[in-house]
């Protein structure tokens, strides 16, 4: 019943991926890496304001998980959201423009780095209050079940959110109603600068958190995109179509610490972030050797490149070409963001209300303006 990675089964799954899918995963990871390098540069040039949290090092998590889902499965995440948006297919131009506070941004410059939204790509946002997005993700799963659709909702959180009540309440709701939710822990071991064991009881045995709610547990290596893909493909299949036992009146649900299939899952993805928590983090809480060790030996992009070459899927030249394109995309995104107009003051009063009144009607006058975008 337990779904901790069974290596043989996993090998079979990713081995069946065709070249196009593998190359697209590599391409997305490289786009995220190069995009984030430009993000850091632009932040240092003060083109980007506020808080800014980079995804470098964790690329395999967003790319591996999202690649294993259907395009219309809703996803929601925390404030380290650039990777998820790009993995979901947001054009880097709109992502960069958002951080530059431009009207061409994915939220018209009203959200910023921590609040990326992309409705056409079913990306329900980056959310910046730690843990606060998990109940929202459960709401997406509830709505899927309510409408009897065959989707799953992906709700991502960082390890710092494990200790928020919102996470625990959401886990409980997912279990009692057997919601089609994939609750994904992007476990990079640090809640800002606090090591997970310093802030989270039983951090060495997170399976118990799932078991205590009767939710299926899985884990995978977040530095290995194929392992992530395998795990999510398998778990998504085991989550889709989850039915609510309480739709039958008078039913008294029973629980099993191994969870239900189909039913919700809690996935512990072990990963590592190379950069500080945010752009303003001198990283005094961990050693340079620790970071360098991951970069040298565990880098998710290098691992995939090695796999592709060893298996004859691609040549170094082909990979270099993809990387060059990714660099160009990132560079172009900065150019696009630079050249886009600031979000005009007139946009201040739009989008406060769907049905505006009083001063918020000021926004209505600018519908025409929005139409031009």
């Amino acid at each position, binding site marked *: 019943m337990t779904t901790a990675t069974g290596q043989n089964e996993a090998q079979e799954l990713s081995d069946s991926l065709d070249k196009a899918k593998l190359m697209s995963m590599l391409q997305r990871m490289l786009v995220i890496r190069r995009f984030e390098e430009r993000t850091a540069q632009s932040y240092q040039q003060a083109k980007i304001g506020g808080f800014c949290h980079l995804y470098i090092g964790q690329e395999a998590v967003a790319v591996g998980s999202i690649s294993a889902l259907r395009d219309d499965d809703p996803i929601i995440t925390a404030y380290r959201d650039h990777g998820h948006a790009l993995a979901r297919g947001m054009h880097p131009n709109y992502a960069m423009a958002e951080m530059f506070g431009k009207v061409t941004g*994915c939220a018209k410059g009203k959200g910023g780095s921590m609040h990326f939204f992309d409705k056409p790509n079913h990306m329900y946002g980056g959310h910046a209050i730690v843990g606060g997005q998990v109940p929202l993700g459960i*709401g997406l799963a*509830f709505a899927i079940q309510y409408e009897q659709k065959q989707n799953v909702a992906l709700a991502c959180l960082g390890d710092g959110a494990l200790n928020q009540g919102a996470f625990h*309440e959401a886990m409980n709701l997912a279990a009692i109603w057997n919601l089609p939710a994939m609750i994904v822990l992007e476990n990079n071991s640090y809640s800002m600068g606090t090591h997970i064991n310093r802030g989270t009881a039983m951090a060495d045995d997170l399976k118990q958190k799932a078991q205590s709610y009767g939710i299926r547990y899985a884990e995978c290596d977040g530095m290995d995109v194929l392992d992530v893909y395998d795990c999510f493909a398998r778990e998504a299949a085991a989550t889709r179509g989850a039915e609510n036992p309480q*739709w039958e009146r008078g039913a008294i649900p029973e629980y099993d610490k191994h969870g239900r299939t189909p039913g919700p899952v809690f996935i512990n993805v072990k990963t590592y972030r190379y950069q500080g928590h945010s752009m303003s983090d001198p990283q005094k809480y961990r050693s340079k050797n620790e970071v360098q060790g991951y970069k040298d030996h565990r880098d998710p992009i290098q691992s995939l490149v090695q796999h592709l070459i060893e298996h004859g899927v691609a040549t170094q030249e082909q990979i270099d070409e993809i990387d060059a394109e990714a660099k160009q995309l990132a560079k172009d995104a900065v150019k696009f963001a630079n050249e886009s107009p600031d979000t005009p003051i007139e946009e201040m009063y739009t989008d406060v209300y769907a*049905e505006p009144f*009083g001063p*918020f009607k000021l926004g209505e006058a600018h519908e025409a303006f929005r139409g031009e975008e």
Partner: protein
Amino acid sequence: MAEEMRRDERVFLMGEEVAEYNGAYKVSQGMVEEFGPRRIVDAPISETGFSGLGVGAAMYGLRPIIEFMSWSFCLVAADQIINNAPKMLYMSGGQFGCPAVFRGNNGAGGQLGSTHSWSVESMFSSVPGLKMAIPSTPRDAKGLLKSSIRAEDPVFFLESERMLGFGARGDKDFSRYLHANGNGGPTWAPPAPEDDDNFLIPFGQAEVKKSGTDCTVVAFGRPVHFALEAAEQLEKEGIDVEVIDPRTVRPLDIDTIIESVKKTHYCVVVDQSWPFASVAAEVGMQVYENALDHLDNKVIRVNNDDVPAPYSRALEQEALPHARKIVEAVRAVTYNA
């Protein structure tokens, strides 16, 4: 709620004890029989969890009605209801709205002590992105609730435990003050159920609960009844009070209030939350901003006393913005008339 649920399959009700218990206050009595447990959902005591669930479900396209047994219990869910719900549309650049209704009892109940006696209108009405309704009669409750469920924006719907059994505790019926409302009657109550499926009261439209010429009294929710009781007493003293019930705080129908003040030249504002930075303070300020030249005296606020709600019945009742305080305020403000 049942009418709206019959009309729109996307509407569901979730809250503590709404289904099998028939509602802690019997508001949802019989609804699980009609709509089943898929749409009438008993939630565990997890306000953060289920109000956040409502926000997520609304983003996805459903129409949640999230019931708080009491608004006093919503405070543990503040991040979801005032950080997520009202800001989602703005932060997403217009992509994801939150058409959810959060409703429940507001204001002092019956000797529940301070933790259970919150009046949240002043605290929450300062948040842009949400709408807020505070009905004072069964008729307004119905029309405003239906409008709330159909609204595209998040609505905070503030009911009153003390008014749920309206009439049963010997409450006075002041409906005689109301002018005929279209279909023939001055009435507190909504029209008959069989022909009122589309009985909507739009937001931002105040109702003159009692017309008068000498002093404008603005009140929301349960204090409307205190104001009418005061008006009855003052009538005997020859002071003809006009009682205005804005019915919604966001949007606030300041125009109707200003029109009234221009006529009466005096204004008292009644509000059951604490006085500091309150709805009453806001209304008073807007009256100054819009009608200073028409005022013959200052505006006086009548709020709940500026103390945590006491348990003792005598103290609790005295703390409310009750009729005697309103009578005294009207007398004080109109002394120079």
